[in-house]
């Protein structure tokens, strides 16, 4: 049978199958890339604020560095992280290689530059008058930067969505530091790779379709939430 048609059929069979193994894979994909995105947002946002709000020497160079890191091949990063997490590597004593933590940290490292770049750009795009206005209204420096972050919220959300999408769709890091151990560290992408290796092309395509459906669904929910929030704020304070 044509693997693509077979894949579409299998995708729908799996979704409604109730198979705990399959749901486990989906759950791990969502959980690992979700935690990775939260970590990356926490690491990246302060750096993006520093880049976006301040002027300093070498700023262009720093921005260019993070822009370049967005294009990091996932396999190359995975290999570097493998050497870091390996028992013989600097973080070896923690014993994190081939555990979920290795994937979450690795994917967080992968998407941090993406989140930094988009967030910093969004912050820079906020009208500089905003900062002055907040200060004259008596806001502390902390309150001012929070206000600007809120103003840049669309860009911040976009950065985090892009980060999540890259984390859930990447293979190199998950395979090299997670090892694709069935039931523990295998995710949708490592299983696509595994089933391709094993010649079960239909199942591989089914997993690919499911991955896309999940990303589509999550992005849709966030977009609708943004819209709803906008309508609520607009309705509450008609100025």
């Amino acid at each position, binding site marked *: 049978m044509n*693997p693509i048609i077979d894949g579409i059929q299998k995708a729908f069979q799996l979704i409604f199958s109730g198979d705990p193994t399959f749901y486990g894979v989906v759950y791990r994909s969502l959980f690992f890339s979700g*935690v990775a995105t*939260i*970590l990356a947002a*926490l*690491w990246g*946002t*302060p*750096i993006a*604020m*520093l880049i976006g709000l301040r002027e300093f020497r070498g700023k262009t160079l720093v921005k260019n560095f993070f822009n370049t890191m967005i294009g990091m091949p996932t396999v190359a990063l995975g290999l570097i992280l493998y050497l870091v997490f*390996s*028992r*013989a*590597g600097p973080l*070896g004593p*923690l*014993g*994190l*290689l*081939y*555990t*979920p*933590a290795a994937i*979450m*940290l690795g994917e967080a490292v992968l998407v941090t530059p993406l989140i930094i770049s988009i967030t910093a750009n969004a912050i820079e795009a906020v009208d500089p008058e905003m900062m002055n206005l907040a200060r004259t209204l008596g806001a502390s*420096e*902390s309150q001012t*930067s*929070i206000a600007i*972050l809120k103003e840049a919220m669309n860009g911040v959300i976009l950065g985090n969505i892009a980060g999540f999408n890259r984390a859930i769709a990447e293979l190199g890091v998950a395979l090299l530091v997670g*090892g*694709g*151990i*069935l039931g*523990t560290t295998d995710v949708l992408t490592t299983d696509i790779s*595994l089933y*391709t*290796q*094993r*010649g*079960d*092309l239909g199942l591989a395509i089914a997993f690919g379709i499911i991955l896309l459906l999940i990303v589509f669904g999550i992005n849709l929910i966030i977009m609708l939430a943004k819209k709803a929030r906008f309508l609520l704020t607009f309705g509450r304070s008609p100025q």
Partner: protein
Amino acid sequence: MKAWQKILIAAALATVIVIAGTIVYFDYFARRRLRISTTTSLYDTGLLDEIKSTYEATHNIDIHIISAGTGIALQQASAGDADIVLVHAPSQELTFLENGYGVCRKIIAYNYFTIVGPSADPARITGENATEALKKIFAYGREHSDQTIWVSRGDNSGTFSKETSLWTAAGYNQTEISSESWYATTGAGMANTLNVANQKGAYTLSDIGTYLSLYKPGTIQLKSIIAGGKSLLNVYSVMAVNPAKVSNVSFNDAIDFIKWLVSDTGQQVIDNYAVAEYSQHLFYGAVQALKNGSPQPDVSWIQSYAYFNDTECPAQWRDDHPELYS
């Protein structure tokens, strides 16, 4: 405190929670784990899944399987990232033992590589032995240098080691011919390499398991042209990582697992694996065969191909486990 500093503290906290959570989970809540680094042919055929589920059903331990080529599997093990290796490249295994990383080697299974190619067999290798076949493929490749005639793994896998020794036996220097235009290198796993050979209508060397798993569902149409014979023998061995050389390995669990693999139960799982599905053996258990000296000539071939000093594991590397060799 500034806003970015607050977020940074939250970031540090979250990172610590993820790391500590994982360590605590694996140390106190999860079952003990045994990390097996293995070759792709054992994993991609599904044999190790079967072994894992059978073993876990009767033992209180989680088997974690990491699949890679033999070269990487051995490297991971020497770095302390595996407790056991399951590989198929005797020459690399000997180095691993000699460097002190491996102990308690046992030969657990064998089968035969196969030379596969397009069903029309343009190089006319049908009926030849493996070395004669390579000579014909070489001659045909030289005549048709505008096409891809041979596809090679080109990695450090056991299959690639076998290919190297076959070219040497046929009287060629593989490093030299690998740069010729009819010889293509994928640098990828067995399934990918078979797919490339299939697309190009070329010949390649494959383990029988991976070949059948792609051939049966019709993913590839290449035919198995040469199968069996001493030069295509493929022997799988298990070794425990030496705790005296590499720290943090679960040695006792590794020995328990090896004992199970060579027991009748373990050997039956290997021997019977997927026989119903493919109407032929993907793997043959090696332990009883070596003990009884039959079937011949397989046993004498195994002994001359995969024994070191007339034994599967010389005494200095048995690490006080003579019971494995009685």
